[in-house]
């Protein structure tokens, strides 16, 4: 199993998943027409990672925009991580939002309400 490193595009985010450090980063815009195509390999990776996860896993979500098609896939990513947590591992999610971006803060709070993971809302200055 290889670490994942995907460069962002105008419609898809930067992704860096590192199995040794347990750092999972998704950053940028996630507005593809077909988000399943994009997220399927990420979800498969987490399935494989779940067999031998790092002692602690930290997810860094730094999204600028995401569409509703991505929001379902992001939900699936969190669900996979939730099951790793249930096996006794530490999983933390840092949900970044820009100062003034109430919608992004709310989106993080939505996930926090329906997913059994530790969410930390991290405010970052506006670009």
């Amino acid at each position, binding site marked *: 199993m290889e670490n994942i490193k995907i460069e962002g595009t105008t419609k898809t985010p930067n992704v860096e998943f590192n199995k040794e450090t347990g750092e999972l980063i998704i950053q940028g815009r996630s507005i593809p027409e077909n988000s399943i195509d994009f997220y399927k390999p990420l979800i498969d990776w987490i399935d494989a990672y779940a067999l031998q996860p790092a002692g602690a896993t930290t997810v860094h979500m730094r999204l600028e925009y995401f569409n*509703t098609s991505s929001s379902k896939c992001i939900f699936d990513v969190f669900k996979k991580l939730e099951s790793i947590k249930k096996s006794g591992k530490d999983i933390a999610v840092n949900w970044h939002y820009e100062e003034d971006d109430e919608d992004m803060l709310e989106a993080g709070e939505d996930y926090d309400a329906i997913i059994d993971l530790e969410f930390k809302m991290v405010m970052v200055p506006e670009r």
Partner: protein
Amino acid sequence: MTQIQEVFDLYDSMERKNIMLSFKGDMSTDLLTSILQLIENKLDRFGESPKIKRRMFNILVECLQNLYHHIDQPPLAADGKPRPSVIVMIAKNITGYSIITGNYVLNDNAEALKNRLEEINGMTADEVKKLYKSVLADGKMSDKGGGGLGMIDIARKSGEKLDFGFIPFEDGSTFFSLNVKVKQD
């Protein structure tokens, strides 16, 4: 009426309605990207707040992707006729912006869509938020990856009632139009 007059009347009508962008044709991924870029640049030039820019961008993505995914083929168009096209208009007005879309759906699907939109319009902001969370958490996903969240998200981000209409035709198709308002603070 001369052709020149028709073109001018169309132009004049759009000008008076402050249409910033108008497109009629097939929606493609490339076009979708171009429209998003164009509007993003325009909003920058207008000096709009980050909040308005984000809301416009989010709602526009959902509206355009709805057009891309959910346009139906009326039965008649199956006999070699071209796929029906869509229309998109973005207008600036005193209170903010309007994103107007129009596309054909099958009569059978129109009913379900209408019920869905009426249900959303009958809800308070809190209820729309709750509905969003429950649809997100139900784990179901359409083959296009949407899972029925699009209209809920549009209503939530707009904060205004959705303005919509249906014109049924005898060939089994219905023209569906949606007007989403994005208000300035």
